[in-house]
């Protein structure tokens, strides 16, 4: 449990004083380590840090033909435009809504499934069900959205079943009506990831002291009471940490599902910030506005992540006391 509780801790808050001074002797002595790591340091600076320079575009009216010194600086114009633009506000609403739906559905289904899997006593069956439940995790979103679209088509298996059970008289056009879109995205996420998400909970359950179950047996607890009073408290720390960490990803509603399942009929419900950036940036060439949208997302994510880290650290320390 402690292992998982430290998820969010930064590398090492206390700086160990390195008494070694940087001398030519040390560099010569460690030259192999330097050959093995410094080129990769240069690599990550080019590929991860250098592009941050591009954020300047958001404060300019960027024109690709001009050099950096010739660009017109416009301050926060593009950010002001974003927050008064109905399009962006709608995109922000969609992102937050789908993110929250995915979060709630993702957590509850994974925890329930983990609890149920944990009750299977025959190892072989447990393994088999687990292996099968991981399968969709390894399929690409292209394939998954293809499967979702086929299943939800007017002649697909879902409408087929609902018609045969006489729950509906006419096929429901799941993917052509905006009101279903968030639910379809949530359900697709559950289908793809629920099995995979149980891994961490099952690992936490495996580390619960068996003596607790024996004690509960002696006290006459039935299975539900043991689940509620032993298993769930045993994985509570894991749940809390994962929940806090996922707050950092609140603007990561996903891009692929919405892009692949969305269509002209549901565009008001399907577009997320990432799609907005792609549409304005790559398709329309409005680089400055798209970059501003991207920066907004990054800044919110970093703030949330730092907040999450701080909260997790505080909770972790409290638990240790």
């Amino acid at each position: 449990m402690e292992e998982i509780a430290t998820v969010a801790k930064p590398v090492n808050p206390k700086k160990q004083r390195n008494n070694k001074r940087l001398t030519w002797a040390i560099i010569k002595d460690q030259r192999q380590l330097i050959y093995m790591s410094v080129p990769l340091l240069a690599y990550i600076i080019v590929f991860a840090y250098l592009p941050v320079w591009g954020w300047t575009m958001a404060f300019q009216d960027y024109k690709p033909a001009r050099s950096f010194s010739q660009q017109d600086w416009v301050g926060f114009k593009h950010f002001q435009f974003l927050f008064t633009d109905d399009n962006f506000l709608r995109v922000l609403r969609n992102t937050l809504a789908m993110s929250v739906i995915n979060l709630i559905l993702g957590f509850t289904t994974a925890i329930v499934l983990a609890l149920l899997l944990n009750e299977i006593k025959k190892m072989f069956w447990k393994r088999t069900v687990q292996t099968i439940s991981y399968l969709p995790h390894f399929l690409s979103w292209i394939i998954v959205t293809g499967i979702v679209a086929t299943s939800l088509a007017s002649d697909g298996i879902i409408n087929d079943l609902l018609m045969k059970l006489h729950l509906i008289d006419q096929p429901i056009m799941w993917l052509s009506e905006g009101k279903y879109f968030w639910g379809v995205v949530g359900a697709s996420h559950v289908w793809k990831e629920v099995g995979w998400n149980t891994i961490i909970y099952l690992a936490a359950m495996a580390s619960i002291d068996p003596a607790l179950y024996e004690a509960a047996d002696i006290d006459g607890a039935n299975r539900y009471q043991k689940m509620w009073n032993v298993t769930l408290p045993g994985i509570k720390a894991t749940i809390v940490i994962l929940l806090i960490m996922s707050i950092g990803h609140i603007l990561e509603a996903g891009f692929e599902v919405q892009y692949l399942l969305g269509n002209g009929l549901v565009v008001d419900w399907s577009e997320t910030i990432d799609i907005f950036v792609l549409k304005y940036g790559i398709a329309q060439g409005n680089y400055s506005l798209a970059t501003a949208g991207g920066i907004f997302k990054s800044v919110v994510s970093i703030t949330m992540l730092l907040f999450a880290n701080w909260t997790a650290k505080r909770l972790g320390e409290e638990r240790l006391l």
Partner: protein
Amino acid sequence: MMMKNTQMSGPKNAVMLSRRRPGSSGVEPFLFNTFNTLFMIFLVIVTLYPFLNTIVVSFNAGNDTIRGGIYLWPRQFTMQNYNAVFASGTIYNAFLISVARTVLSTLLNIFLTTMLAYTLSRREYVFRKPITTIFVLTMYFNAGLIPNYFLMKDLHLINNFLVYVLPSMISAFNLIVIRTYIGTIPESLVESSRIDGAGDFKIFWRIIFPLCKPVLATIALFVAVGAWNSWFDAFLYTSSRQELSTLQYELMKLLSSSVNANSNPSVANGVGAEHATQVTPISIRAAVTVVASVPILMVYPFMQKYFVVGLNVGSVKE
């Protein structure tokens, strides 16, 4: 019918159970087990059915599938769909590109990440702290789509095969996972080979790399799955050069028309032209889906025992 049986035989079994386990009360364990088993069967069906159905459609004659009613067994078995897929230069070429990028990405990722992780695990290394910090910070921010696009443009990686491999050669998360794992390897192994005169590269390659096999197995799988499944880079960076297209991106092009309700029969143009009598866009799509997913589905069940190792080591120290 099923439910009735359950209720009738319930109490009898429950008595037996309750005798064995004094704590359990009455019919509950049996009801619970029945419910749980039924639920797991439901889960397995919901997970497997769509995929099995796709496989069946891929082996059924396309013009017959349109009539509907294909569930778990082909009505008119045929290999035509697969013949059409592999006869088409487009898909075959995309398949080769996908294989190449996956193999190259995985090998480079594993080698470079482990090498860097080794240097960062050496306590005496002077640049250990700054390099670790610079890599860990990359987990917290991302420059975003547009700046990254311009970077690829400036590096002349647009319409270049290397754009599939270069941007994602090292992930900070995997780096920390491997470094933590190396930390569990006894220091004496490194020390004794150093006394034997081995340099750091030799120690890494001969001693550390082979010992990291369990954790590298998981990471190799994750990297390979990520490389094989990605399509966005092909869409963004190489879409104007058909010969660099990947299998997933070709599949995306086949699927994108079907998501929109008004499906357009010419989606499979060029793919099924010479087999036009039997092959339809739906059957081609099914065959490509199977081709695009089978390689990974053949591998992952054998790696299952390592998944937890990989995930847990990662959470020890982020």
